[in-house]
């Protein structure tokens, strides 16, 4: 006899009905037990937010610090120019990269003393415009 046959092996429906009816003949209704179980469940689950909050406090400091460091690195890498680039662009040696450096580069090109090209001057001009914020203008 295979599994399917075994599952199909059955009793007449009338007999099954009587078995079920007999098993369910004595329902027990007890509101006190219902209340006890449900009250216990509520009290049990109410412990949950406290536990979650505790876990949150335990990890809050290290997670916050790690997130701050990561954010700082991302900001600097995304928006901050490389120091070597800034130093190269500080043509007049003032410690700042500004439009005066573009003029200085133009003068050097005119004097043909540095090998500066028009493309290099134009590139520096664009970069000065892009750097025109207090945060990125000064050299480190």
């Amino acid at each position, binding site marked *: 006899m295979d599994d399917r046959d*075994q599952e199909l092996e059955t009793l007449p429906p009338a007999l099954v009905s009587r*078995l079920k009816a*007999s*098993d369910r003949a004595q329902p027990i209704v*007890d509101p006190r037990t219902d209340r*006890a179980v449900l009250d*216990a469940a509520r009290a049990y689950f109410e412990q*949950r937010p406290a536990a979650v909050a505790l876990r949150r406090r335990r990890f809050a400091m290290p997670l916050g610090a790690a997130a701050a460091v990561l954010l700082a690195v991302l900001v600097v890498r995304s928006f901050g120019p490389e120091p070597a680039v800034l130093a190269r662009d500080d043509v007049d040696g003032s410690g700042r990269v500004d439009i005066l450096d573009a003029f200085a580069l133009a003068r050097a090109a005119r004097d043909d003393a540095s090998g500066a090209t028009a493309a290099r001057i134009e590139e520096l001009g664009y970069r000065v415009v892009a750097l025109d914020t207090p945060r990125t203008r000064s050299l480190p």
Partner: protein
Amino acid sequence: MGPTDRRSDEDLVAICNVGDAHEAARAFATLYRRHRDFVLRVARRFTRDRELALDALQETFTYLLRKFPPVGEGLTLTARLPTLLYPVAKSSTIDAMRKARRYVGVDDEVLAELPAEPAAEAEPIDAALAALSPERREVLTLRFVDDLSLAEIAVALDVPLGTVKSRLHLGLKELRDDSRIKGLLGP
């Protein structure tokens, strides 16, 4: 949600596992209302004592409750919930009977197999069922009253599937041969 809550047991168990306190309590209440009568019926198969059956009901759902966080690790349903609840309800009933000292001096194994005595005014079918061995009666009841599949019965009783098949087959044969219910079995 009330008794008409259509969410599956799996969904409700998942909420009990990870939901907030309010959601989890509501989901658990739905599970309780959905399966309370089943657990009580199981308890009544082993004891006619109403109070003991109610104790077993409470113990069974306390066991289920503690499966969920923060105490438990969470519950993963690998079978239908009644399959999990059946052995808990059975052992809770037997524990309650033992605590009540109704069977002092009776060996635990014997106690585990004790059926509830059929009532004096029992129907012929009840008498025929009561005449079966406890193992066969248990399998027949789970199969035809609780509508569990053979595989689910094997899980609920923690016995091999072949054992379930054998008990079912022999139990049915015994019932068919019982003269008290010949009329119910047809020609």
